[in-house]
């Protein structure tokens, strides 16, 4: 592949430029669905973009005694991590950056924002931010294990650590979620926790901790952080689509040439929106649980379920089915 095509992939489509638009679109889709589920009208189409521009123009407040550079750098690093992770998720066909073992890289990059959130809260010199940071870190240990295990299931079934190969293994239309429904459910719930959305919005519980680790974060730092959060949302959803819903593949359609790429992208787009809709529905249906309840439930229910799914997948693999 020529350098020009690679550069286009990296910066225009489906890289940086497209990702920006897609992230804002996903935020709008999420907010709009949530609003309709709550009998509200919801935001207009360009609202996420308008919010971003508005935040960019706001005053950049830095708390006394906090390193302004560190505080400005952390959201950027989070943004870079999740945007890089998105490059490895197959959209049209296999990603040109794909490598053996890139699934591990994506999982690692998706974990970074939570760790950065902890640092951001802990260095904020604010009691709400600190308690929120501790909660974010405690929560990390609860959901990461089942999330990793749930991502391991499809990899085991396809006997590869490359996202593209997991997708190809499902090209026949036998998507992983049909074989591993339990794993898919665990992945959805763990992703909801990873993105800190209700019922797992414990670190930034508004009625308890104001805005949690982000309490002191304003202006363009908050704008970048929110953008990173939106990208994490689409990357997480896109990863689940790749691992469990066959990515851009459509059963019986060969993804070749320009038309193939268009069909592949369309399939990927629709599937991602469906996953986002499920995430929004969970957000609308329940209230927030407490951190102690999450820890108990995460280790007593979610992780054993993920382990059970892995065990079932290994046994099925052993007897040679499917």
């Amino acid at each position, binding site marked *: 592949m020529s350098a020009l095509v690679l550069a286009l992939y990296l910066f225009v489509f489906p890289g940086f430029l497209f990702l920006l638009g897609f992230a804002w679109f996903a935020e709008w889709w999420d907010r709009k669905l949530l609003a309709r*589920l*709550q009998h509200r009208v919801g935001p207009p189409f360009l609202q996420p973009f308008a919010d971003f521009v508005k935040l960019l123009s706001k005053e950049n407040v830095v708390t006394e005694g906090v390193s302004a550079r560190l505080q400005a750098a952390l959201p950027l690093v989070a943004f870079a991590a999740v945007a890089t992770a998105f490059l490895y998720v197959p959209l049209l066909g296999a990603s040109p950056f794909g490598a053996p073992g890139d699934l591990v890289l994506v999982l690692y990059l998706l974990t970074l924002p939570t760790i950065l959130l902890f640092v951001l809260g802990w260095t904020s010199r604010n009691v709400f931010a600190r*308690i929120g940071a501790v909660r974010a870190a405690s929560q990390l240990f609860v959901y990461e294990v089942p999330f990793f295990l749930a991502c391991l299931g499809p990899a085991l079934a396809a006997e590869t650590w490359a996202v593209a190969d997991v997708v190809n293994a499902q090209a026949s239309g036998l998507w992983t979620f049909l074989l591993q429904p339990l794993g898919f459910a665990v992945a959805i719930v763990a992703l909801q926790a990873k993105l800190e959305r*209700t019922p797992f919005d414990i670190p930034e519980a*508004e*009625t*308890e901790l104001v805005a949690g680790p982000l309490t002191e974060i304003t202006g363009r730092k908050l704008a970048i952080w929110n953008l990173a959060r939106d990208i994490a949302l689409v990357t997480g959803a896109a990863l689940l689509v790749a691992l469990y819903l066959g990515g851009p593949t459509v059963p019986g359609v060969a993804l070749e040439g320009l038309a193939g790429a268009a069909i592949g992208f369309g399939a990927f787009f629709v599937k991602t929106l469906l996953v986002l809709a499920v995430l929004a529905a969970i957000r609308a249906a329940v209230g927030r*649980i*407490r*951190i102690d309840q999450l820890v108990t439930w995460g280790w007593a229910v979610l992780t054993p379920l993920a382990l059970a799914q892995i065990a079932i997948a290994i046994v099925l693999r052993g007897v040679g089915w499917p």
Partner: protein
Amino acid sequence: MPEVELPIGPQHPALKEPVSFRVLVDGERIVRLDLDVSYNHRGVEKGAEGREFPKALYLIERICGICSHAHATNFAKGVEALMGVTVPPRGQWIRTLVAELERLHSHLLWLGVLAHEIGYNTLFMYTWRDRETIQDLLEEISGNRVNYGMNRLGGVRRDVSDDLRSRALEGLRGLADRAGFYSRIIREEQTLLVRTRGVGRLPRDRAIALGAVGPTARGSGVDFDVRRDDPYVAYGDVPLHVMTSSASDVFGRLEVRVREIEESVRLCTHLLENLPSGDIAAKAPRVAPQGAYVSRYEAPRGELVHYIRTNGTDKADRVSVRTPTLANWLSVVEAIQGRVIADIPVVVAAIDPCLSCTSRTTFVDTGTGDRSAMEWDDLVAYGIRYYREREGLP
């Protein structure tokens, strides 16, 4: 983490009114909780003492935005008793109707607030939408959505027409369905259950000892309701069931309020269907003879007490208001002990705090930040000394 002080209020997203909790926490666990309710003293009692009765009624109604009718009716009831005025039955029934509609809108508002405190915003949006039905009805009946201004001394200001009655009954039919829906939701929704069951425990004997009132007490199994036990306006003539719960925690308070929503819808329907005919108000004299009266009323949040003393003029000599929230604070401090940060908004919201009606003054040494209370005699002496110095009197 070492122990840190977490300031909840006077400005905080969980509490939209000025109250301050200084919470000492060790990690997530609460070590100690200090409460300060004196951020917004408005001097309504003193203001009411300086005005003629009809104007005082106008002022008293503005003690609270949610239970404005409760304050106005309770004050009017007391003054009418002192004046010896009898309100005609139709006036009493319309007062009762507005009181029950007010309870409905207050409880629906509260249900939404509790849901919001645990991040369950969908339920919040649902209940506040249903609350609009009641506010529209109240607007049609009284002309206002919030401070209804329905009372005047001797009766009510506006009549309820037959046309309005049929429309109100239709709205109430829709609300009865919704009340059934909420009743099902609070029993089945898991996140709501895990956040309220066993949280903020207040055993029956402690509820009585700490003087809890209203749904807070009834949620701990205290079977007391002023409407039934000391009937006023038309409550003696209508079928009323007092709801209690033996759960003795936030869920108990939730259960009581949701069942009261269902009961209030039934009660409003009964009131509208059996509204007696006749006058809506009697003429009240301008002055009240010397006397004192303790007026009790079951506001949405619990028993509301007005003490009114008159001395034969057209103004009250002394007005003292004991709001239900003031009676319930102690139970909050008890129920929150040993819990975690996440339970603070839930336990506080469970008493349905109404802070602007509750503010009391305290003395703060601005130099050291020390706070103290003042005895009545000291306060009188302080007042006399203050005015002497200001007027330059010997």
